[in-house]
């Protein structure tokens, strides 16, 4: 329970009805999609930059831990207030400050949801490229803090490549502005990109200047099926190495196809061991040529067929396979441990083979799909939490999954971040010297160690 005087001090900043302290009220702000839970002592709703700066300074005066929270859709626990303290819930700082189509820039507060922003931009003929599947619920602040992205990243990049500048309050309460209102102008060291992906451990973002991209004139969807993962991985390399970059290049492995076959009625070609779904965009005048280029690159050893959709129904039919996957998975296992690892595309077959071997050894079903164009694969371990030994086997298996990924020159996370979940593994990817340097960077922004403590770095 928070000291009443402190509660009054927060109320003085944001108004009494913008502070929650009752157990039942703060409870929902204690978890995210990692299903970890640790309630804060208080939840405060800032409405503007000034509020954030004052709250952070107050927390520093009283040695209170603080965590910024978007909408809690993160999957690794980065917004979970492990030490209690104060959650700064950013959801009411949700104004789109300015859309400037002439300069191709939007200025937003961090609590705006990704989808609300896209909806506001579309009438102007623009979009902001980062496209996490959770777009309808997650905030721009969360997107920036995790560097979240989706399929479109292969052509259009992640928040790092699509953000011009930030306004923020550091853990120490210092108000900073990074970047400028231009083509990613930077004066001095690039703090914009340092803050992006830092999981809210360096500063709280209060405003972001985002770079916009014109909406494409038209798009096409293709599906290519292959006998096995090796032939599909070679195709991914060929597809990415020619000049027409698709903006979506999704992959599902043989186990996933098997599952769809069992639990849905979606028609699938026989003998398929891996499938790619592609989307390409561009000028109406050039789209057929672009499709031809992709179809040509898809050709090769092990190709079963490649289909191009032209009508909306045909597009839906191609995506039906991918969309049938999630319900099918739920049918099989009540819980899935979903990890988003990345390996170089050429190592995809070794990754999938390695995962198959682990699945056999630990008697755990593993299903893989993801964004093949940049080697970002979602590895799903299917478990029944009611079987105690299964969960234990899964944990051990997961440990080896990470070793496998790092041995294949990969990284532990392409989208979901480190948060709490991957802390135990981070020192396998980063050397002690590198971690030490990152800690000293953290220390510059948050000398008292109060801003989102106990995240990223090994315990």
């Amino acid at each position: 329970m928070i000291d009443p005087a402190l509660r009054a001090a927060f109320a003085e900043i944001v108004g009494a009805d913008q502070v929650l302290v009752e157990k039942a009220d703060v409870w929902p702000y204690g978890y995210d999609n990692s299903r970890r839970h640790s309630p804060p002592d208080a939840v405060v709703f800032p409405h503007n930059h000034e509020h954030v700066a004052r709250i952070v300074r107050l927390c520093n005066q009283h040695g209170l831990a603080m965590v910024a929270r978007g909408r809690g859709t993160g999957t690794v626990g980065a917004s979970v207030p492990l030490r209690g303290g104060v959650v700064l819930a950013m959801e009411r700082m949700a104004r789109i400050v300015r859309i400037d189509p002439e300069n191709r820039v939007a200025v937003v507060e961090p609590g705006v949801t990704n989808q609300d922003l896209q909806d506001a931009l579309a009438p102007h003929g623009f979009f902001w490229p980062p496209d996490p599947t959770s777009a309808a619920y997650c905030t721009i602040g969360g997107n920036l803090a995790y560097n979240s992205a989706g399929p479109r990243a292969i052509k259009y990049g992640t928040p790092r490549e699509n953000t011009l500048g930030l306004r923020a309050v550091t853990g120490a309460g210092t108000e900073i502005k990074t970047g400028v209102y231009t083509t990613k102008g930077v004066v001095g060291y690039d703090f914009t990109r340092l803050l992006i992906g830092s999981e809210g451990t360096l500063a709280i973002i209060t405003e972001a200047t985002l770079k916009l991209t014109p909406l494409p004139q038209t798009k096409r969807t293709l599906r290519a099926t292959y006998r096995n993962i090796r032939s599909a991985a070679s195709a991914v390399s060929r597809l990415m190495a020619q000049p027409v970059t698709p903006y979506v290049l999704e992959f599902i492995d043989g186990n996933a196809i098997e599952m769809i076959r069992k639990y849905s009625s979606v028609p699938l070609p026989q003998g398929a061991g891996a499938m790619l779904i592609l989307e390409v965009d561009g000028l109406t005048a050039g789209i057929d040529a672009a499709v031809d280029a992709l179809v040509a690159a898809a050709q090769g050893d092990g190709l079963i067929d490649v289909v191009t959709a032209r009508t909306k129904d045909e597009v839906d039919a191609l995506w039906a396979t991918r969309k049938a996957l999630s319900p099918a998975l739920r049918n099989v296992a009540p819980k899935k441990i979903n990890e988003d690892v990345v390996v170089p595309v050429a190592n995809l077959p070794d990754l999938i083979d390695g995962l198959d071997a682990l699945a056999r050894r630990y008697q755990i079903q593993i299903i893989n799909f993801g964004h093949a164009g940049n080697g970002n694969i979602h590895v799903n371990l299917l478990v029944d939490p009611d079987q105690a030994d299964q969960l234990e086997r899964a944990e051990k298996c997961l440990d080896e999954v990470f070793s496998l990924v790092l041995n294949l020159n990969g990284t532990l996370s392409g989208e979901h971040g480190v948060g709490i979940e991957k802390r135990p593994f981070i020192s396998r990817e980063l050397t002690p010297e590198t971690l030490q340097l990152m800690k000293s960077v953290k220390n510059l922004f948050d000398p008292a160690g109060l801003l989102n403590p106990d995240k990223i770095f090994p315990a």
Partner: protein
Amino acid sequence: MNGNQSAELQELVRAAAGAKRTLRIIGGGSKNFLGRATSDDDVLNVAGHRGIVSYEPEELVLTARAGTPLAEIESALAERGQMLPFEPPHYGANATLGGTIACNLSGPRRPFAGAARDYVLGTDIINGRGEALHFGGQVMKNVAGYDVSRLMCGAYGTLGVLLSITLKVLPRTAETLTLRHELGSADAIRMMNARAGQPLPITATAYDGATLYTRLEGTATAVQAARRKLGGDVENDPAFWANVREQRHGYFGDARKLWRLSVAPTAASLNLGGKTFIEWNGGLRWLYSDESPEAIRTAARAAGGHAMLFRGGDEGADNFDPLTEPLATLQRNLKSAFDPAGVFNRGRLFTAI
């Protein structure tokens, strides 16, 4: 001092830190004119630490030591039909990859494809304590820990010695065509921006005061469709964009100081007299002017950006927009975290950094 092996370079850095001497890191020396002029105790020449470590065309990834000549990298890529997407200027035959990344130099394609820093996947560096550190990796998406690799880009060697750099590369486009339109400056700025807001296959724009140049790249059909839409005449000089990039175009070469202004793309003419050359859809303005540095910086700020003295700076003068508090303190502290004794390129970026 020369070092070919990273261990030798580490030893030299440790010795300098121990003796409290400062080092000026030099690759090919082609960017000596960039940044503040400084007087360092010793030169650390890294040109000998060179060579492509690995290049996997099917993976679109290349790793090279920092001293590798840019030309060597570009010709290895060209052999496989690939390129550095950020189209870096060389500013001299000796340009190295390390210098290019340290200065975050990007050419005409930048507003369309991104800057040098957007293509850096990982780096190996030596910090001011002589420790070798590795950041990032070989894959495009990586959110494990802070993005320190990107901090190296544009740090002008003040944070550490770049040892090697892993870059994402891209396939070359199939077809390229440059269009010319004779226009006044206000119309040119308007047209560049109007076009940039549409999904057209444009990959470079430049305005020399009389003519707007627009480069189209992509599949043949897309380029031809865009050409019909945009009209204008075809520019036939195949070296046009290379000349702009390398500042060999007729505009450059004035005896006055050359300023580089980063401004909001739609900013109107800045009324600073002299002569201007515009790139990047209006976001980049080169300027030869007799106005005072203060007047130029004020105008750039009013136009939503900042100004850098690009050529002709002298010791003592600030080349970059001076940092204001509290950012200045944070940046100084960041420098200390990497280079506590202040060994590297002291004063190259700002007086105190």
